[in-house]
């Protein structure tokens, strides 16, 4: 117990012995973790969106809010006449929302935050005999846009494809950027600890002389690295939590999407991942530094 308290207090003193350097490395680690959290959230969001869109529907015809029901029904009859179409369903605004609520309830990753307004549009969902006819039919239906009934034609399989492509690109890009940030963060931590070791070189010399074990000499520095990581994690997660609300609102206002937010399961996963990465980077960097600078 006494050993633990000695090592802990040595680590804490080490952190504040050179506050500028410690806070600079905390900031760098925090920035890296913020990026990590951002990629984690974006990736998860896109995946969730893709899975929502991956319903059975192959083509969707979104209708203008002011379209007349008679015109809609006429259009529906027209589409049903095409031999490639197997079925057309008319989904009202209310049904669309009800379905979204239902989907969300099955997905632990998403929650509907606000359902007082309904930005969803009524639609005609078209099932095809053969998915290969989708491009031809969607092209024909796009001609209807601007004629008072059809707002947009969505070729679902291609949207899902696009989303998955974006997810993949973002993942690759994210991993690359994250990798670079990781190297920078490690470099900064290695240097911070190197300076800490240098500041305490007399103490270390005496510790080794009087028979302190290697781990007793090293632990304070490794804990100091972990402390830098953990404080960086706290900073990054605080920033994420503070930014989450405004960013979501901005996205809702700007993109006119349904306000979705991540469930608490994902939040805990995010907190856990960020802290785990922080501890690994902080402790790992410190260990690396101590191994090279405490060779004897």
């Amino acid at each position, binding site marked *: 117990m006494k050993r633990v308290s000695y090592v802990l207090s040595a680590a804490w003193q080490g952190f504040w012995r050179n506050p500028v350097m410690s806070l600079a490395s905390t900031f760098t680690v925090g920035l890296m973790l913020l990026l990590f959290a951002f990629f984690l959230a974006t990736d998860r969001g896109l995946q969730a969106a893709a899975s929502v869109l991956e319903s059975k529907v192959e083509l969707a015809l979104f209708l203008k809010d002011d379209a007349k029901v008679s015109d809609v029904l006429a259009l529906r009859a027209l589409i049903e006449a095409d031999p490639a179409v197997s079925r057309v369903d008319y989904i009202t605004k209310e049904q669309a929302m009800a379905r979204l609520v239902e989907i969300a309830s099955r997905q632990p990753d998403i929650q509907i935050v606000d359902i007082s307004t309904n930005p969803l549009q009524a639609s005609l969902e078209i099932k095809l005999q053969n998915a290969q006819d989708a491009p031809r039919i969607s092209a024909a239906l796009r001609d209807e846009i601007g004629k008072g009934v059809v707002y947009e034609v969505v070729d679902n399989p291609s949207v899902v494809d696009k989303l998955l492509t974006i997810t993949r690109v973002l993942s690759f890009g994210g991993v690359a950027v994250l990798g670079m940030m990781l190297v920078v963060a490690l470099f900064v931590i290695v240097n911070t600890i190197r300076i800490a070791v240098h500041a305490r070189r*007399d*103490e270390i010399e*005496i*510790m080794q002389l*009087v*028979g*302190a*074990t*290697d781990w007793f*000499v090293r632990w304070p520095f490794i804990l100091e690295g972990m402390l830098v990581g953990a404080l960086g994690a706290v900073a990054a997660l605080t920033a994420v939590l503070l930014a989450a609300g405004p960013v979501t609102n901005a996205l809702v206002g700007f993109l006119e999407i349904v306000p979705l937010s991540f469930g608490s399961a994902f939040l805990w996963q995010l907190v856990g991942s960020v802290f785990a990465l922080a501890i690994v980077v902080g402790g790992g960097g410190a260990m690396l530094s101590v191994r090279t600078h405490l060779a004897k």
Partner: protein
Amino acid sequence: MVSPRANGRGNELITLDDVSKRYPNGTEALRDVDLHIESGDFVFLVGSSGAGKSTVIRLLIREELPSTGRVWVDGQDVVRMRRSAVPRLRRRVGVVFQDFKLLPRRTVAENVGFALLVTGHSEEEAREETERALSLVGLAQRRDHFPDQLSGGEQQRAAIARALVNRPKILIADEPTGNVDPVTSWEIIKLLIRVNELGTTLVMATHNAEIVNALRRRVVHLDRGMVVRDEREGLYAA
């Protein structure tokens, strides 16, 4: 190649067997050194600078390894010992240096207690043992002073207290009087004699002829890495 147990000298605490040390830069610090020190001995290591005194000391606390030959300390093969066993060896060998090596931002008591805290003792144990060591060296009144508030002799006594606080079997002093005036030198020597009388084996490297000649203890004379003289009641010069 005789182990200290096998050679019949059961009381032997330090053994150097045919030890040579060549540093990477080519300097030959020790050549074929044989040295046997028994428990309770008081040994002066004498010789000019660069004769190999400091290398002997570094071998005993395994700061260096010999190029050839064997080193035993308290029955342990220092050369073959695992790295993880080195801390335990160093707890049995206290070392005092010419430049004291006290931590300037810690008080005398903290400097002494430090040696116990970093070797895993509780604060209570550290407090008790620190008091014991400080009264042994006569610094109990100065326990809360910082090193720069002490005289050179007091600083060296604090360093000796730190070296003794782990109750080592061996105390090695590398030029302990090198940085203090003659009167203070005698105080330090009297203290070391007392430590030796209490049962700690003492190995002291020194240039101080006056002290060596006055005490008539065992003298091991090193010259260019070789033991040229080893006398029971020796003088500084032959």
